[in-house]
């Protein structure tokens, strides 16, 4: 029987895909399997069954000890070829996103990355992803017999766990050592921010002159009961804030009641992230900044004057 195969190096994302996979499995008349790779893989089987997998393929091959796209792609390729995988669903994490096209290339398959919805229409899988930098949403289907889709984390809800058993298959893979060697891993300062669930968000952009000035926006955020978000340079170039706070195409898509964008020009890769906000506000000194077109309310002015004044007013309410 044809098979849907799920893989993500982050189990919680894989569980989302397995949960949704149950629906696809019925609609497409396929089996639902998952691949568990690397150290400690065998011990995870039961949880995958609980979320709905019929079968898991397990390999703790030494070449899989560290994630490398090259070797993981080969492992998934071998599993897929041996077991009649038609649909490979992977998490579109950074690792999943570099893995998906590589394994697709081995399979001669089309691939869609960063899918933010996948559904069955007329017996075919259709995936949505942003196109033109976020200006549009493109609905796509894959024409090759095998299909690889990398799905953004949190696209699908985690299903309820059930008491379910499944088949564990220990797979013997023929793998070479990875050609990229990991020399060191520098952990990022762990910060858990849940921007996706925040009721209010204040985002700060490159209009802020220096890190020391973050205090004035933090104060506004605190007064509003808001989480702090930011645009790209602030986290990736300057590292003033953690990447957990990045809003936009390569960051979080948020849906608060209120989103205030401060010193942000409003380029499409940012605004795509705040589309889900109910009310949007912009503070920018340039009256022609595109962010105003994306805003319900706008103030043209210097953030260094407007933000403290706004905070003061809000505190006096």
């Amino acid at each position, binding site marked *: 029987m044809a098979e849907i195969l799920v893989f993500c190096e982050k189990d919680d994302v894989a569980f989302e895909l397995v949960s949704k996979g149950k629906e696809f499995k019925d609609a497409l008349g396929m089996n639902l399997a998952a691949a568990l790779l690397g150290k400690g893989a065998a011990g995870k089987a039961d949880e995958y069954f609980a979320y709905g997998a019929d079968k898991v393929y397990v390999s703790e091959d030494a070449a899989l000890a560290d994630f490398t*796209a*090259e070797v993981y792609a080969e492992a998934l390729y071998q599993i897929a070829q041996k077991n009649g995988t038609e649909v490979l669903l992977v998490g579109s994490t*950074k690792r999943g996103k*570099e893995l*998906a*096209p*590589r394994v697709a*290339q081995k399979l001669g*398959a*089309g*691939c869609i*990355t*960063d899918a933010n919805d996948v559904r069955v229409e007329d017996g075919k899988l259709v995936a949505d*992803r942003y*196109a*033109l*930098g976020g*200006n*549009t*949403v*493109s*609905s*796509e*289907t894959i*024409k090759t017999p095998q299909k690889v889709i990398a799905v953004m984390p949190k696209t699908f809800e985690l299903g309820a766990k059930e008491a379910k058993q499944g088949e564990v298959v220990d797979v013997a893979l023929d793998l070479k050592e*990875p*050609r*990229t*060697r*990991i*020399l060191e*891993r*520098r952990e990022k300062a762990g910060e858990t921010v849940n921007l996706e669930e925040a*009721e*209010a968000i204040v985002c700060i952009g490159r209009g802020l002159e220096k890190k020391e000035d973050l205090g004035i926006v933090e104060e506004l955020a605190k007064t509003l009961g808001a989480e702090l978000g930011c645009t790209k340079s602030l986290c*990736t*170039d300057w590292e003033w804030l953690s990447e957990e706070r990045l809003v936009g195409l*390569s960051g979080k898509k948020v849906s608060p009641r*209120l989103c205030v964008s401060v010193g942000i020009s409003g*380029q*499409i*890769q940012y605004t795509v992230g705040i589309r889900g906000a109910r*009310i949007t*506000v912009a503070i920018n000194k340039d009256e022609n900044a595109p962010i*105003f*077109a*994306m*805003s*319900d*309310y*706008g*103030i*043209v*002015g210097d953030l260094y*004057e*407007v933000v403290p*004044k*706004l905070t003061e*007013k809000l505190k006096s*309410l």
Partner: protein
Amino acid sequence: MNIIVCLKQIPDLQQIRIKERKPILEGAPLIFGDMDKNALEEAVRIKEKVGEAKITALALGPAKLKDGIKEALAVGADEAVLLMDPAFAGSDTVATAKALAKAIQKIGEYDLILCGEGSTDSYSGQVGPRLAEMLDLPQITYVRELEVKDGKIQAVRNMEESFEVVEADLPAVVTVAAEINEPRLASLRQILQAARKPVQEWTPADLGLAEEEVGEKGAAVEVLSNLAPEEERKQVIFSGELDEIVDGLVDALTKEGVLGR
């Protein structure tokens, strides 16, 4: 050392208009993707460091590339290979990567292939890994620091929870993140010199590819629709004295019921 930089020409996304939810691309100037420019800049920096290197800019796209590529040549590419045949039109990532891989094989000598982590318009991140697979090379993605030494590269990758320092032998495919560098602008002298640099144009036949293997016919993904989401914002701008403006905003937000926890 031979470096190939893959550059994609895209419409300036800030200048795309939306009409009845459809994107209007006509009139939007064509530019190279942000991270593709970072990839080229990194190639130029490597060349400055190692001394002896040849940089080839490789691009698949519409005929306008012929003009656009001058920018890459001015910034520091030594020569360019363009895949502009009408048969390439409508290429998806599969068809693009296939043609680029064949072109890279035809160029023949390569130590390092540089791509953007994603193209600025589709940001699929597929072309780099697909090239690596087709050419049977290691891939290092999301690179924010890169060093070339003794036939090896060392790179710092920006991953979700960590910065990962990795090493590989050359040749390899590297995709760069936006923070790796700040691309330079070409000087007038460089722009003038660029006109004299060699530019080759290759057709599918030059690459040993049949027309069915490239362009829309060679694509593995079919786009069913591509529309802008419905979106309407009130666009109220407050003006006047700072005090009044801020009062106006606070009032409006209070009425919207979005203040308070």
